[in-house]
């Protein structure tokens, strides 16, 4: 408390004004567009930046726009299903790499990193070609089966991220616990279920959050896999933005931003354990893909 009044220490860079100014400027740069977007979704004027009064009418319009709602529901459905599949596949891949020695392990490890580092456009065209030539996805399937191609594409780039996060967590597992469980008569499966899985839990939360946001965020890969009747929210917004900038898009975007913020808060609360958060950061750090 005393230190607060003294001159800043040599390494307290945060207390030096040039750096504070810099941080403030960067903060404005990062947040001003998003905040302006949210604020003007409530402005009672189509074109003006001058505040004309508070209104919910663009939310009403957005919520009555059937194709926008359909795209929104599609996006959430795809993200939810992709997250579950990615979580299972990612956790299994992490377990395999952590637990076993096997021929071709380096190759599998390297191949698993490919979807993370490959440029999104390359993945997108690969999926386009695959679903055009190898596995043509039927056009007129009932919902949600018509989303299958997009879900498959999303799982392909999401589950390696989950594997990275879970593997980071498994590295801190004390293998003596497993040996103790085995000595006490637990089977392989039982040990996996009752000893290793609880240890993995925080990283599963982090991985699920990562997979969900990656899937919800994706535009390029979806753009290449989606048909005319399987539009997701980003693809819909893209086609709207191409024509004009309208407050309805502001309103819809605000809703999605709020969903993201709530999810982030929930994920941070659920994780609690800092070790798993680190895994999450490491994975995001490793995410050199994305646009």
């Amino acid at each position, binding site marked *: 408390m005393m230190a607060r009044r003294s001159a800043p220490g040599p390494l307290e860079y945060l207390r030096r004004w040039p750096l504070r100014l810099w941080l403030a400027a960067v903060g404005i740069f990062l947040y001003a567009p*998003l905040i302006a977007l949210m604020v003007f979704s409530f402005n009672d004027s189509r074109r003006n930046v*001058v505040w004309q009064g508070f209104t919910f009418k663009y939310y009403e319009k957005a919520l009555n726009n059937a194709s926008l709602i359909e795209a929104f529901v599609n996006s959430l459905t795809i993200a939810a299903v992709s997250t579950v599949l990615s979580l299972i596949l990612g956790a299994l891949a992490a377990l395999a790499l952590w637990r076993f020695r096997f021929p071709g392990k380096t190759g599998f490890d390297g*191949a698993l990193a490919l979807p993370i580092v490959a440029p999104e456009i390359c993945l997108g065209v690969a999926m386009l070609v695959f679903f055009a030539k190898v596995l043509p996805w039927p056009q007129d399937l009932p919902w949600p089966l018509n989303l299958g191609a997009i879900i498959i594409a999303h799982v392909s780039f999401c589950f390696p991220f989950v594997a990275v996060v879970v593997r980071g967590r498994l590295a801190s597992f004390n293998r003596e616990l497993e040996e103790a469980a085995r000595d006490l008569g637990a089977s392989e499966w039982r040990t996996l279920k009752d000893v290793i899985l609880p240890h993995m839990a925080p990283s599963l939360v982090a991985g699920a959050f990562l997979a969900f946001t990656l899937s*919800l965020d994706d535009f390029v890969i979806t753009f290449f896999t989606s048909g005319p009747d399987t539009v997701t929210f980003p693809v819909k917004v893209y086609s709207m933005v191409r024509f004009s900038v309208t407050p309805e898009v502001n309103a819809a975007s605000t809703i999605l931003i709020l969903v993201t913020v709530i999810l982030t808060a929930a994920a941070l609360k659920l994780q609690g354990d800092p070790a798993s958060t680190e895994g999450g950061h490491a994975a995001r750090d490793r995410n050199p893909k994305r646009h």
Partner: protein
Amino acid sequence: MEQHWKSAKGLFGAVLGPPLFWLVLFFLIPMGIVWLYSFGENRGLTDIALTGTFANYLRALDPLYLMIFAKSVGIAALTTLICLIIGFPVALAITFAPPKAKTWLLLAVMLPFWTNLLIRTYALIAFLRTEGYINQSLEWVWNGLGSAVSVLGIGVLGPFEPLDLLHNNFAVVLGLVYVHLPFMVLPLYSALDRLDTSLIEASLDLGAGHLRTLLIIVAPLALPGIASGVVITFIPALGSYLTPDLLGGPDSQMIANIIERQFKRANDWPFGAALSFLLMYMTFIAIALQALMSRRPRERA
């Protein structure tokens, strides 16, 4: 110790099987097909004959496409440089912030990162376009100035000319910096956070200024982190599709836009496949360079 797979075949198969199956069928095979197509030729409207030709790669050497490659690399490099200049002080401030402020600052850096890319790009469009927030604000200031000028009788200010902020290379670089800044800050932070602060303190005690300490002590020690930040920013910037598409003008096309055109409009899949594998190889080269950069300091130690 890791277990040999033969000692628990059932468990091993159950654990490795599904992810391996998925990775091969839904990633490696699609990629492999694109790779094969890059050596193919169009036959008719939909058929592609795999003739083992290198013509698609040779076509990429056409000055028109070479220029686009060069321009994409230039834009990505400029984006990376600006991100580094903006991001380094931010990472430094976060590293030496008190624990509570640190958590919030990190969260503040990451939150836009988790926000939908399309929404962020759209937010920028709303700012930059001709009737956007910036031009409308400027017009308001201009009109205010204009009436002040005419009241004072100095002269008459002409009508407001909106600035062309959107649909040019400036907007593309701005958009890329906006989107990729967190990619730079996070690895820089994790490198700086691991730094031995006593070295910095020693340098400061011995009379070196802050700038000198940064350049001579901090920057070399944080080099692996800087290298990974640079690569993590450069790779997605190089392959970006959405930002040049929405913010750029007709002359700001990047590699990804050309690839998209081959697949969706020009319907020249073999050429598009060759272009996307060239982009893949450039990505691998960038990663290999980073691996080299981050290994060197460890070898010296």
